[in-house]
């Protein structure tokens, strides 16, 4: 066990590490999650069942996981990055195969006591492998196009598998998150321009591979009036609910649109709408403000870390959190198609909550091991 909990100075015990844990960030996470519990309580018409109580239980379990992930030595994560990644990839292939046998969309594997969603595991392990890859490159290396081939394969393989499930939201998240890691690792901007141009050329091709309901969502986004009783109904109703909340909102548990069932899936995808209807612009702004604080915390942790691996992990984790939040809020306000991404820490849903808390565990881990140096090939440099 010496490796697991070793530090550069080798003098931090588990307790010592726990003292290093960034409790301010944890407080923020707890506040945002509590807002979620309150909204779920309201969504159920003033009852803890069926959502709020279960969500709190999951938060409790996830919180323990968070602490465990945070105190494991950062080099362990470095060392096992590829192993985790390939396990996630194999599981993704497994769901693909199982899904084909079971007919229809399949996103999770049933492993007895829990439903394992490999795309969630992939979100974290992809950050780890990308961080490890760029950790090993000098700036000159990053400038060589050939050095980008391998990480691009690492990104595209799971992205394609997840998109085929079909879970476009998660695939998009993997791609955006990877692009951000590339960016902060120092990949030249013109390369992004080149990729954007390629993507522009590929979109018409990709369009033909979308399922009908996915095409419908994009078309409805472009013109909601097109289908006023189908998918467009959700966006129209969401805007009405949100807009009618006004500056101060209708009050806790007073949202007419949400409670009269005008609003679809108010406990998951459209929970931000419900929050804004009940607590108004001020409430929505408060939540966004809390998100901004978390984002800044993450940026600060990444800047403070002394290993490139730690920095990239921090940016990757906090960025995927950001992307979740941005896509969800933009979606309920009719600025993006309805892709079905949850609002992080607030929407009802166990797997997303777990992934986020484990992710934050990684972030805090980077903070705890902020002074740890890792050599370009993983060795501990002699100080």
């Amino acid at each position, binding site marked *: 066990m010496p490796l697991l909990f070793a530090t550069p100075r080798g003098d931090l015990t588990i307790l010592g590490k726990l003292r290093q844990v960034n409790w301010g960030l944890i407080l923020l996470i707890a506040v945002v999650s509590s807002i979620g519990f309150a909204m779920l309580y309201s969504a159920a018409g003033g009852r803890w069942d069926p959502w709020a109580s279960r969500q709190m239980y999951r938060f409790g379990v996830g919180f323990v996981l968070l602490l465990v992930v945070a105190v494991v030595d950062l080099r362990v994560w470095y060392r096992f990055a590829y192993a985790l990644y390939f396990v996630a990839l194999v599981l993704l292939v497994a769901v693909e195969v199982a899904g084909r046998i079971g007919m229809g969309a399949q996103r999770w594997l049933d492993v007895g006591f829990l439903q394992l969603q490999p795309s969630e595991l992939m979100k974290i392990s992809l950050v780890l492998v990308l961080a490890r890859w760029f950790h090993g490159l*000098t*700036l000159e290396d990053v400038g060589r196009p050939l050095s980008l081939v391998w990480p691009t394969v690492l990104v595209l393989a799971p992205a394609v598998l997840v998109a085929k499930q079909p879970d476009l939201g998660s695939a998009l998240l993997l791609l955006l998150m990877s692009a*951000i890691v590339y*960016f*902060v*690792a*120092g990949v030249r901007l013109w390369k992004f321009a080149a990729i954007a141009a390629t993507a522009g050329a590929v979109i018409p091709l990709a369009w033909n591979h979308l399922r009908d309901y996915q095409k419908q969502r994009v078309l409805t986004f472009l013109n909601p*009036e097109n289908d*006023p*009783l*189908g998918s467009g*109904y959700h966006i*129209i109703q969401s*805007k*009405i*609910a*949100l*807009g*009618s*909340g*006004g*500056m101060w909102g209708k009050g806790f548990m007073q949202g*007419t*649109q949400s409670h*009269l*069932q*005008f609003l679809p899936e108010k406990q998951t995808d459209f929970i931000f709408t419900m929050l*804004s209807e009940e607590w*108004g*612009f001020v409430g*929505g*702004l408060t939540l*966004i403000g809390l*998100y*901004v604080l978390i*984002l*800044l915390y993450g*940026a600060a942790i*990444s*800047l403070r870390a002394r290993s*490139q691996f730690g*920095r990239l992990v921090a*940016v990757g984790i906090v*960025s995927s959190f*950001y992307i979740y939040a*941005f896509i969800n*809020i*933009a979606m309920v*306000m009719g*600025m993006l198609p309805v892709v079905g991404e949850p609002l992080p820490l607030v929407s009802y849903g166990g797997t997303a909550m777990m992934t986020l808390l484990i992710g934050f565990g990684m972030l805090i881990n980077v903070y705890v091991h902020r002074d740890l140096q890792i050599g370009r090939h993983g060795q501990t440099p002699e100080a």
Partner: protein
Amino acid sequence: MQRENQRAKLFSRRVALLTGGQLGLLGALVARMYYLQVIESERYKVLAEENRISLRLLPPPRGRILDRFGELLAVNQLNYRVVVIPEQTGSVSETLDVLSNILQIGDGDRRRITRDIVRKRRFLPVTVRENLTWDEVSSISVNAPDLPGVMIDVGSSRFYPQGPEVSHIVGYVAPPAESDLTGDPLLELPDFRIGRNGVERAYDLALRGRAGNSQVEVNALGRPIRELARNEGEPGNEMVLTLDLHLQRFAMSRLADQESGAAVLIDIRNGEILALASTPSYDANDFSKGISGPQWRELTTNPLTPLANKAIAGQFAPGSTFKIAVTLAALESGLVGPDLRVRCPGVYALGDARFHCWEKHGHGSLDMIEGISRSCDVYFYEVARRVGIDRIAQMAKRLGLGQTLGIDLPGERAGLIPTREWKLATTGVSWQQGETLVAGIGQGFITATPLQLAVMTARVASGGLAVVPHLARDKASGQRLGPRQEPDFPSIGLSASSLAILTRGMRGVVNDPRGTAFKARIRDPSMAMAGKSGTSQVRRISAEERRTGVRKGNQVPWRDRDHALFVAFAPLESPRYACAVVIEHGIGGSAVAAPIVRDILLEAQRREQEHPEPLQRVAST
């Protein structure tokens, strides 16, 4: 170390850029939120609180169904009904209480309404009562202020002006069942009906059309204030059938004397169904109005099965009409020539078993043509024994038996043509030669539908073309009639000489004084027919009964009486019509079924002179 610092510097710069960009995008979200919640808030408050936009689907009128001359078979009628929109009603049960002062609302209705409310989206209207009288409509309108969310709706309901005479063909519509709901909101509209049977079901999608919609601004009481936008749908397609209502009615009335039966009249040249009768029948209007429990029980428990379309779903032993297939199998195989003579003593012995001819005293010596026209069983025992079951089965299948013919109606049955292989596979016992003999006279395992018998006759009369029946004048699209192509049926490969011999035999059946159905002949030579009678046993006759004398016809209980069958085509020169009639437990093919076939064929030919051309194009209304 230098390199490491460079990398860290670039990283810091980019993280700063990234975070700035992320905050900027969040700023855009906040701006949008500010726009929706503060600047536009009043508008959305109005939409949410008082003036909810109500999006209403405009159901497309269902396409009408017409016969070949444009006679109406299915139309739409105005129907006033009262609906309640749950989202606009304070309390549904209170509203129903007020309503019940004006209308009768039973407990059963209440349960259905509550169930519908749970099942549907809250902005969709739920029907309280249909078919309101004018008095009820006006008293609801007067009390409108006390009835938030209650509205009078004018819808359309399906009406079948011809009643039971075409019910089996046209079918009926019914409200969609839970399993039919596909998420299409059109299906959740209160008066939406889907085709449940007959043409209504076979061409449901074409008849349905495409829904339009209208965006209506309504106040909190559910009263429409103004229409914001309207998008007209497309009415359903009009369906023109090949059916001739006059001939259909004629066939139904000729069958009416019998308890249960079916008749099929088909145009040999193109496979058009002119009449497809099945008795007893039911009134499709009972279904579109909503059938009552006792009525439904009556229909489903009646031993005469009025709901079944026996013309396509009744499977009967074809009896001697099957000798058509046996004759062709024999001649085409070359194993038996037309000159084969057989002496009929009234009984045929095979090993220890004895097979009887319907003519107890025997026919004497016969050739093939006489064998057909006098329908000698012994003659065909001999032929069948020589040809074998597999060749007979093969021929029967070429003639359209033992398979569904793909008529555009739901519920068509395939009948059964047995082979050695089939029997071994289904019963595990190998084929016995005695069974070949029995098959030679259309008994035993063999069954066929009246439609198949008519098609078999049409295939013979057309000189061996694979005639396929259909009901819609334009089957391909199921649409409004355009210029139509006559189907070009492929040949089933029968030689002219075999057909000539068979036809001579069938001609003798009605035109030779010794033929089995001479009494039913058509005297006008230009309209004369050729046919084949059949009487198929429903149960075995024991040796005991044969000794003591078989009980005849009316002495036997109805359910044990023989089926009476007759198939024929006319006119003899250049045949145009093929007809098959089956009378369940009608006793005698030549005595009971043949006169009906004769009358239908005569009526069709007379009608052809009066109305030479069927409708070519339907005037749209």
